C-alpha cells in the first residue's frame, strides 16, 4: 500500500468484526512479498487464520511463517513474514518480572489482587501492553515493519489513552495522599494498623470494605521504584505512534454504525495530532447492475427464454428478487463509502469486496492484497 511506504509501524484500528486481523495480516504479507522482514502482532485471530499461520499454540513468541505455507499458496516472498499472538496476562507478568528490582518484588506484585485485575481485565490494559510490545520490538530493530492488530473491543479513546490510564493506576498522587497512613503502616509491617482513616477513605470503604483499600495500598507499595521505567517507555511509545514512522490504518465495513465509529476514531487520532494514513473498507457488496439493463421479472423471463433456460418454480422471480436485494445492499454500501470519502478528504481509501469465502490462509490474504494495492 503506497501510503504506508517507509513506515516502520502500522496500526490497524477500528471496531470489532470488521476484518482488522485479516487486514493486518494482509499488510504484513504484502511487506514480506516486497522483501521486508515483517511482523504481524495480533491479539485474537480467528482460529483458522491462526492455525494456517502456524500460530496455534504459541504464546508471546514471534514466529516465522513456515516457507512451506508460502509454497502451498504458490507465493515466493523476497522477505520474511513473522507473526505473534499477544497474551495479555503473560505479557504483563513478563514485564513485571523483567522490570522488578528483585524476584521478591515481582512475586509481591504478581500476587496482588489489584495487579491481577489490571493484568487481566482492566480497561486499557490490553492496549497498553500491545503498545509496550510494539515499542520493544521496534527498538530491537529486528523487523523492518511491525503491523499491530489492535484489540477487538477497544474504542478509539481506550486505545489512544491506554498508557495514561495505566500509568495513572500504577501511581496516582491523589490516591497516594489519601492512602498515606495505610501506606506508612504497611511499610513498617504493622498490617493491623493499616485501616482506612480520613473521611474520604472511610467513605470509600463503605462501598467496598477496607480489604480492598488495603490491597490498593499494597499494590502501590509493591510497584514502588518501577513507575519511572513505565513512564519513560510510555512517553517513547507516544513519540513513536505520533511520528511519521507510524501509519494508522482505519479498518471498517460499510455498515453505517461501523463507519460512524471509524470517523470517531479518525477524529480522536486527529485530536492527538495523528493523521490517518489510509482507510480500508472491507466486505463491500458488488453491484449486480454494473452490467446494465433492466432487472425486472419481465426482462428476466425474456432473457431466460432467449437462452432457452426453463423458467420453473418461479426461477425468474427468484433471480429478480436476488438482483434487487443485492442492488439495495450495493446502494447502501456506496452511500456509506461516499460519506466516508467526503468526510475523510484526502485520506486514501481502499475497498475490498465481500469475498465468496472466509479468508483463512496466505492465498486468501494475497487475494486481499490485490485490492490494497491501488486506490
Amino acid at each position: 500500500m503506497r501510503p504506508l511506504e517507509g513506515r516502520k509501524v502500522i496500526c490497524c484500528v477500528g471496531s470489532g468484526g470488521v476484518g482488522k486481523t485479516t487486514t493486518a495480516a494482509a499488510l504484513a504479507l504484502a511487506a514480506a512479498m516486497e522483501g521486508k522482514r515483517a511482523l504481524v502482532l495480533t491479539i485474537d485471530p480467528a482460529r483458522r487464520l491462526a492455525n494456517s499461520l502456524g500460530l496455534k499454540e504459541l504464546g508471546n513468541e514471534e514466529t516465522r511463517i513456515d516457507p512451506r505455507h508460502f509454497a502451498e499458496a504458490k507465493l515466493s516472498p523476497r522477505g520474511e513474514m513473522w507473526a505473534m499472538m499477544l497474551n495479555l496476562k503473560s505479557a504483563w507478568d513478563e514485564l513485571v518480572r523483567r522490570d522488578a528490582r528483585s524476584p521478591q518484588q515481582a512475586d509481591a506484585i504478581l500476587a496482588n489482587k489489584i495487579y491481577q485485575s489490571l493484568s487481566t481485565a482492566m480497561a486499557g490494559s490490553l492496549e497498553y501492553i500491545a503498545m509496550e510490545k510494539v515499542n520493544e520490538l521496534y527498538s530491537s530493530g529486528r523487523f523492518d515493519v511491525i503491523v499491530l492488530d489492535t484489540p477487538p473491543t477497544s474504542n478509539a479513546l481506550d486505545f489512544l489513552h491506554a498508557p495514561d490510564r495505566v500509568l495513572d493506576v500504577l501511581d496516582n498522587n491523589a490516591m497516594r495522599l489519601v492512602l498515606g497512613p495505610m501506606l506508612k503502616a504497611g511499610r513498617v509491617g504493622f498490617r493491623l494498623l493499616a485501616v482506612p482513616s480520613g473521611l474520604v477513605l472511610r467513605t470509600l470503604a463503605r462501598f467496598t470494605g477496607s480489604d480492598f483499600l488495603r490491597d490498593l495500598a499494597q499494590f502501590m507499595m509493591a510497584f514502588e521504584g518501577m513507575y519511572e521505567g513505565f513512564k519513560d517507555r510510555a512517553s517513547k511509545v507516544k513519540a513513536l505512534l505520533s511520528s511519521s514512522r507510524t501509519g494508522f490504518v482505519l479498518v471498517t465495513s460499510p455498515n453505517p454504525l461501523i463507519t460512524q465509529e471509524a470517523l470517531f476514531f479518525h477524529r480522536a487520532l486527529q485530536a492527538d495530532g495523528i493523521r490517518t494514513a489510509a482507510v480500508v473498507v472491507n466486505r463491500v457488496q458488488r453491484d449486480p447492475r454494473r452490467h446494465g439493463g433492466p432487472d425486472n421479472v419481465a426482462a428476466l423471463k425474456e432473457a431466460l427464454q432467449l437462452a432457452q433456460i426453463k423458467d420453473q418454480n418461479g426461477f425468474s422471480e427468484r433471480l429478480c428478487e436476488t438482483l434487487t436485494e443485492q442492488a439495495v445492499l450495493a446502494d447502501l454500501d456506496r452511500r456509506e463509502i461516499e460519506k466516508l470519502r467526503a468526510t475523510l478528504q484526502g485520506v486514501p481509501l481502499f475497498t475490498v469486496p465481500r469475498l465468496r469465502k472466509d479468508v483463512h490462509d496466505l492465498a486468501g490474504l494475497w487475494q486481499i492484497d490485490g485490492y490494497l494495492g491501488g486506490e
Partner: protein
Amino acid sequence: MPALLDRRLVVVTGKGGTGKSTISAAVALAAARRGKKVLVCEVVAKERVADFFGRPPSGTQIRELVPNLYSVHVRPREAMREYALMILKYETLYRLAFENAAARYFLTAAPSLAEIVMLGKVFWHASREMERGRLRWDMVVLDAPATGHGLTFLTVPEVFLRLVSEGPLARDMRIMQSVLADPARCSVCIVTLPEEMPANEAIDLDRALRQHQFPVGPLFLNAAFTSRFSVAELASVTRGGPLLTAAGEAADSHESRASLSGHYEGVLRESVARELVKVPFLFERSFGAHAIEKVAHAIEGVL
C-alpha cells in the same frame, strides 16, 4: 421452566456488531404485543433502541417508545451518583468522597465499579414495585455489552465478591447474583451471525455462561441466509446476455452466502446446546420500526 417472555430479566449478549440491540428491541416488542409492560435498558456508550422506533433518545429518563415498550439509557456516571447517594444520603458527602482526584482514581482501580453500579441500576428497575406488591415492569430487557465485556458485566457480582465481602455493595451484589442464577426469573440469550468469528465467539460465550451457571436462553442466529437456487439452476445461468450474467452472478453470490450461513448454523447447532432461533437477513434501505417489526415477527413463534 417459564417461556422467555415470562422471565422478569432477559439479558441479550453476543459479539459486537451481531445485532444485540435489534434482538433486544424485537424481544421487547414481542412481549409488549402480548400485553406486557417492558423496559429495555441500554448500557453501552451509544443508545440505539429509541432510534429504531423513530423516537428521540431516552437518555437517563424512562420513555415510552410504543405502547407498553419503554427504554432507558443507563450511564456509568449518573448511575454511580444515584447509587452513591442512595447509600450516603447526603449530596455534600457524595461530593466530598467522589468528586476528587483520589476517588476518580479509585473508580478506575476498583474492579469494574462502573459495571457494578450500572448493573445495580438495571436490577433496581427490574425489582421495582409500584403499589400493592405489583411490579412496575413485567419484563426488563438488558441490552448487554459485547462478549468479552458482556461477560465481565454479568460476572461483576462474582468478581466483586471475591475481592470485597463486606459493605452495602457486597450485599447488593449477592442479591444480583441470586437473580442472575435463577432460571425462573432470568434468561441470558446470545446473538450471533453466520460467520466464522461471531460463531466461534458464540461457542466460547456459551461455554463461559454455562461455567458461571447463568440461565440458558436461546441462541439468536441473526442475518441468516437461506438457499434459494438449485445447483442445476446456478449452472444454467452461467451463459446468456449481460442481464442473465448479472443475475447468475447475483444468484451465485447469494448461494455462497447461504452456504456459509448453513455451514455456521450447523457448527452452532452441533456445539451450542441452546434453542437456535433463526432471524433472516433483512434487505432494508433504512433500518427502523419496520425492520424491528419483521424481526419480532420472525422470533415471536419460538418465544
